[in-house]
C-alpha cells in the first residue's frame, strides 16, 4: 500500500469512485480510494437505482440534470467496455392529494424553466404508460421521459476503471481505523493495512460518514436509517417507467434484466447501522404495490435486503470542508438519492477541493446552512 498520497478518499461507493475520477480528470495526482469491503458494498450496491430530474429545489434539479446528461454518455466518457444499462423509461410520479398536486405544478414549472421537459399528465395518459395501474386513489401524475434507472454496480465499476486508467489507486478490503490531525490540519489516515500520510481526506463513506468524521474530531449532523428493498423473478418487459408514489412512500421499477425492484420507506426502521433484512417488509411492500399495480400479485419475490440512507437534517447532501479541520472534506448525507447525483458529486467535490470556479450549486450545500438556517428543504423525497 502507498505510504503517502496527495488525496485519500474513504469509501468505494459510487460517490468515492466518481470523486476520484473527476479529481484526476481535473489534474489532481496521487489519489487513493480506500474501501473496507469491495466496490459497491455499501448503499450503492443496495439501492433502487432510480435516476430522476423531477425535483422541487432548483439546486437538486441542476445537480440531477448534470448527472443524468453524464449518464447518457457515461460509457464513452468513461471508456467503459461494458454497459451501464441506463434505461430512460421515465419516472411516473403519482399524485394522490390536492396539496401534492399544487406542489407538483410548482415543481414542473421550475423544472421546465431549467430545461427539464417534465409534464403533468392525466390518469388516462398514465394508464397509457402503465395500463394496469389502479388509479382509484389518484388525481394525476407527473412524467419525465428522460428519467429512469441505471445499473449501480456497472456504473461504479465504470468510474473505478476510468479512475485507475488515469493513475488512481484503489485499495479494497482496507478499513480506515483512524484519521490523524495535527494543529487543525489533516496529516494522515490509519488503516488495518498500515498508515498513509496525506494532507487531504475525502469522506465518502455513505452511511458511515459521521463515524469517519468523528475519527477526525468533526461532528456532522447526519444519521443513517435502514431502508428495505426486494427483487422478484425476471419476467418479460411489463413496466417501462420507474413508478413512485410519495403518499404511499414507495417506488417500483423493472430492471432491464426483467426483475422488478421495489422499496418503501418506513419510519419505524432502526438507525443503528443495522442492514439485516426486516421480516415485516415484504408484507407491507407487497400490500401497497399490488394495490397500485394488481397484476404484480403473480410475481414471485426472490430476495429482500436492506441498506442505509445517510440522512441530513434537510434531506439534501452535504458537500463541505470541515470548519475545524482543514483538509477534511465530506460528501455525504444523500438522504436516499445519492446514486443519481454521483457525477454532480464528483464534479462538485473536485471544484471544492481543487479551488476551481463553481459550475454547480454546491457552495449552497455546505455545513454553514445549518447555522444560518438557509435549509434546502426538498419537498419530493421517498
Amino acid at each position, binding site marked *: 500500500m502507498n505510504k503517502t498520497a496527495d488525496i485519500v478518499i474513504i469509501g468505494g461507493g459510487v460517490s468515492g469512485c466518481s470523486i476520484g475520477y473527476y479529481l484526476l480528470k481535473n489534474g489532481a495526482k496521487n489519489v487513493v480510494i480506500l474501501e473496507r*469491503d*469491495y*466496490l*459497491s*458494498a455499501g448503499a450503492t*450496491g443496495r439501492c433502487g437505482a432510480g435516476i430522476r430530474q423531477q425535483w422541487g429545489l432548483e439546486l437538486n434539479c441542476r445537480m440531477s440534470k448534470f448527472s443524468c446528461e453524464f449518464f447518457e454518455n457515461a460509457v464513452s466518457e468513461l471508456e467503459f467496455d461494458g454497459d451501464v444499462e441506463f434505461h430512460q423509461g421515465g419516472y411516473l410520479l403519482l399524485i394522490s392529494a390536492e396539496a401534492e398536486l399544487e406542489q407538483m405544478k410548482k415543481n414542473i414549472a421550475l423544472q421546465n424553466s431549467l430545461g427539464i421537459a417534465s409534464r403533468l399528465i392525466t390518469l388516462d395518459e398514465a394508464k397509457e404508460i402503465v395500463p394496469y395501474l389502479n388509479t382509484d386513489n389518484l388525481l394525476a401524475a407527473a412524467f419525465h421521459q428522460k428519467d429512469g434507472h441505471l445499473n449501480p*454496480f*456497472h456504473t461504479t*465499476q465504470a468510474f473505478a476503471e476510468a479512475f485507475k486508467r488515469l493513475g488512481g489507486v484503489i485499495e479494497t478490503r482496507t478499513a480506515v481505523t483512524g484519521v490523524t490531525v495535527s494543529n487543525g490540519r489533516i496529516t494522515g489516515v490509519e488503516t488495518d493495512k498500515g498508515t498513509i500520510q496525506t494532507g487531504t481526506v475525502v469522506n465518502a463513506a455513505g452511511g458511515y460518514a459521521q463515524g469517519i468524521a468523528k475519527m477526525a474530531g468533526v461532528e456532522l449532523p447526519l444519521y443513517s436509517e435502514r431502508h428495505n428493498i426486494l*427483487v*422478484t*423473478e*425476471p419476467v418479460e418487459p411489463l413496466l417501462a417507467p420507474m413508478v413512485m408514489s410519495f403518499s404511499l412512500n414507495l417506488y417500483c421499477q423493472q430492471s432491464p*434484466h426483467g*426483475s422488478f425492484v421495489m422499496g418503501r420507506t418506513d419510519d419505524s426502521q432502526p438507525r443503528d447501522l443495522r442492514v439485516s*433484512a*426486516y*421480516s*415485516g417488509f*415484504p*408484507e407491507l*411492500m*407487497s*400490500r401497497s*404495490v*399490488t*394495490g397500485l399495480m394488481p397484476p*404484480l*400479485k*403473480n*410475481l*414471485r*419475490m*426472490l*430476495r*429482500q*435486503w436492506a441498506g442505509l440512507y445517510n440522512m441530513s437534517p434537510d434531506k439534501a447532501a452535504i458537500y463541505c470542508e470541515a470548519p475545524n479541520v482543514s483538509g477534511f472534506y465530506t460528501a455525504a448525507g444523500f438522504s436516499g438519492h445519492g446514486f443519481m447525483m454521483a457525477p454532480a458529486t464528483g464534479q462538485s467535490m473536485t471544484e471544492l477541493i481543487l479551488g476551481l470556479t463553481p459550475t454547480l450549486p454546491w457552495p449552497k450545500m455546505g455545513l454553514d446552512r445549518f447555522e444560518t438556517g438557509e435549509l434546502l428543504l426538498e419537498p419530493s423525497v421517498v
Partner: protein
Amino acid sequence: MLEQTGIPEASDINGVFPSDERLAKGPVAVIECFQRIPCNPCSTACRRGAIEAFDDINDLPKVNHEKCNGCSLCVSRCPGLAIMVVDMTYAEDKALLKLPYEFAPLPEEGSSVTALNRAGEAVGEALVVKVQNTPALDKTPLVSIAVAKDLARTVRNFRVTDDTSAESPGILRGDEAPSPMVCRCNDLDLDNIRDLMKKGFTSIDEIKRVSRLGMGPCQGRNCIPLVLGELSRFLGKPVSELDPGTYRPVVKSVSLGAVAEYDGEALTE
C-alpha cells in the same frame, strides 16, 4: 458432523441402508440424501412406487426397500449423485456397487481402480465390472464396481488408477465442448467465471454484483458452491476459509399476492 464436513458418518449411512435381510435378497437402492432441498426427480423416477411420493418438494426421499428391485432407474436421475444400488449377493466375498460417475476419464471395464470412501480417501481396490453411458442416462454414466463385502458401507466412489493421480478429477469435459454452465439462471459458464476472477473479482459477493451470479430463481443454491470451488483453486485457499456470500430471505420464492394476503401473526424483527 455431516452439517460441518459434508461427509456422512457411519450412523448417517446405517440410517439409510436397507436391513441385512433385505440386502441378502439382492440389489437395492441406497439414497444418501440428507438435506431438505427443493428437489424431487427421484420420487418420480421409480416405476415401482418404491420411493414415496413427496408432499413437499423439500421432503427427503423415503425408499420402501421391499418394493425396490434395484433396477437403477433412479440412480442417474438424481442431480446430487446421492443414489447408488448395492448388491450383496454379487459374489461370496464381494459386493457390487452401482455408482453414478460424472468424472473423466471413464474407467475401462475389467480394469482395477482405487476405491474411495465418502471423504475421498483411498480405502482399497475395486474391479470395474460394467460401464453404462447410454443417451437415456443423460451424461450421468453408471459404473458398477466390485469391492470386498466388508467395504460395502465404506466405498462410495473411486479413482481411475495409474493416471496423473495428484490432479483432482475435472468436470466431464471434452476439449472442444462448450464451457460448462455454472449459473443457469443468468447464463454464466465456467469461462465467464474464470475471466471475472482474472479481472480481480475474487469473492462471491463481488462476482455476484458484477455478473448477477446467484441472483436468479435458485438464489445461488446451485452456482455458489461451484464457484466457491473455483475460487478455492484460484486463490489456493480451502473453501472453509472463503466467504460464502450473504444468503437472504426468502428461502423459497413466493408470490407478492400470497405475501400481501398473509393474515397470520404480524411478523416482527
